[in-house]
């Protein structure tokens, strides 16, 4: 990423690029475990979406569709809070990854 010179910066320490942190892929922090979405068990309660600290639940067409591994840090809250007895999100083992990439 090219960094601006002092002359190129907006005056007054302002960031005009709202929401550009989506370029930070927090998924690279995951270590050891990751959630797995099992669609047939899902009751579309949206609790996983509600409680995911890293906005990593994929919602498409008003339905929970799975996990966005670009952002998922593997905290496991979604799995714990997933209500069905046969959980629609379970935590599974994940090979260690290199920072910034994926070895999957």
């Amino acid at each position: 990423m090219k960094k601006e010179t002092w002359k190129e910066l907006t005056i007054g320490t302002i960031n005009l690029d709202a929401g550009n942190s989506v370029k930070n892929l927090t998924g690279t922090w995951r270590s050891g475990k990751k959630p797995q979405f099992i669609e047939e068990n899902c009751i579309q309660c949206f609790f996983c979406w509600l409680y995911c600290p890293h906005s990593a639940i994929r919602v498409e067409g008003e339905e929970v569709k799975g996990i966005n591994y670009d952002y998922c840090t593997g905290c496991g809250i979604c799995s714990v809070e997933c209500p069905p007895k046969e959980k629609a999100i379970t935590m599974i083992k994940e090979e260690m990854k290199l920072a910034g990439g994926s070895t999957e």
Partner: protein
Amino acid sequence: MAKLKDLASMEDRLVAGHGMCLGCGIPLIFRIVLRATEDPLIIANATGCLEVCTTIFPRTSWNVTWVHSAFENAAATIAGVESMYKALKKKGRIPEDKKIKFLGVGGDGGTYDIGLQALSGAVERGHDIVYVCYDNNAYCNTGGQRSSATPLGASATTSPEGAQSPGKLQRRKDLTKILVAHNIPYVAQASPNRWQDLYKKAQKAFEIEGPAFLNILCLCPTEWKYDESQGIRLAQTAIDTCVWPLYEVENGKYKINYLPKEKKPVLDWVKSQGRFRHLFKEENAWVLEEYQKQVDEDWEELKKLANL
């Protein structure tokens, strides 16, 4: 009643890619709060985890207008923005029908401690603002030092447990009550695990004219030292033990919003958190007893205030 599906279809005002820890409770709070108004919103954020983790230049997680100036003055800063809004409306430089909501946000350090004066001043002056304190019980951004919101007996880096100390020796400050004493239109305590309650409270806070204050329990796996996947369970325990009662005070009238079916012992709250681990040493048993006593006292008093 709002449905989560509908909330999920709203635009995110705090987006992915922020640097908050695994299992952090802050985003859960703001996922709800920031959806509780559809009006344009301006936020003034105190220094702390939320501010630091969302705005590391040149990236920002804010998809809404957001201002940070310092640690102790989020309330004064947002009051300034609101004052300009009022002035420009009066002078006809902002259209009469343009609505904007103003939100001040701080952690417990930025609200209970160093920012208390600015908050007190801002709500006393009656600015039309909402102030949200996310109370994670410590100065988390700087490594978990004690604040006046840190519970009795918790080990924090400036109130560490040790051979001669059972952790923090003082009772928590009851900030919510202090805000109630300002006689402002709306004061409430909430917790992210009761999302509908939180959502309603945030809606009310934004709708009410004049200052409104929300004190929201905020999970911090890093400084509380618990298994981060268990956060929402732990928040449930906080309300079931009455360590963090859910209530609101609207125009002076108290209402308890959650009555545990069976009030659980404080032990349940304490046992899964590393910051309280030392309380299970024999010599520290009295601290847990004292903690329980304090929680009981506060709960009884709250019930009386709510005519229960």
